[in-house]
């Protein structure tokens, strides 16, 4: 049951940090990027992707097995994690 998790974050946002911490504590592997720490085209591309996925400019944007969760919301994270019995949408 491998979960694919990607976190779009801002380095300035405590809720982004809490989100990463939650996945750390839950021992779930994830990839993450602090969009504001990138530069130039890389930053634009990551920001545009996060805005497109979330339909807004709010962070964190968490993609769990293709499902998008906007904001620090552990209940929603669990819903989409296969390893926790979620992933059904």
């Amino acid at each position, binding site marked *: 049951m491998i979960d694919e998790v990607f976190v779009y974050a*801002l380095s*300035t*946002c*405590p*809720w*982004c940090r809490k989100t990463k911490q939650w996945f750390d504590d839950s021992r779930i592997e994830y990839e993450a990027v602090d*969009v*504001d720490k990138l530069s130039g085209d890389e930053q634009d591309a990551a*920001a545009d992707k*996060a*805005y497109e996925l*979330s*339909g*807004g*400019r*709010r*962070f*964190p944007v968490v993609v769990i097995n293709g499902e998008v969760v*906007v*904001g*620090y*919301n552990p*209940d929603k994270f669990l819903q989409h994690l296969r390893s926790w019995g979620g992933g059904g949408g």
Partner: protein
Amino acid sequence: MSNEPRKESLRYLFERVVTPLGYKFTPDAELVDELLEAEVKLEQDLGAPYCPCQGRSGVREEDMKIVCPCIPFHRAHFDAMKRCWCGLFVHLDVTDPDSLPQFPPDED
């Protein structure tokens, strides 16, 4: 250089803005400190204390709507959460900010 004096100024200025709107600083003092620190740095780097948890677009008209306190421009959404997006401000009656969910505007 310490950011404390500017943080204190923002505290004073923002308190006057959010109180008439029915909000107060979150009782989570550590979170307040972290967010104000981030805003002071954003103000130094970019010229305005933008929301630390929202991304800028480069379009002034949009970006000015996420300068703290941004409650006037997202009121229905924040009222539904009883907090602003980054959690710096909560409704006046909130005593347990950790119980407040963070959700995007179309999920309320």
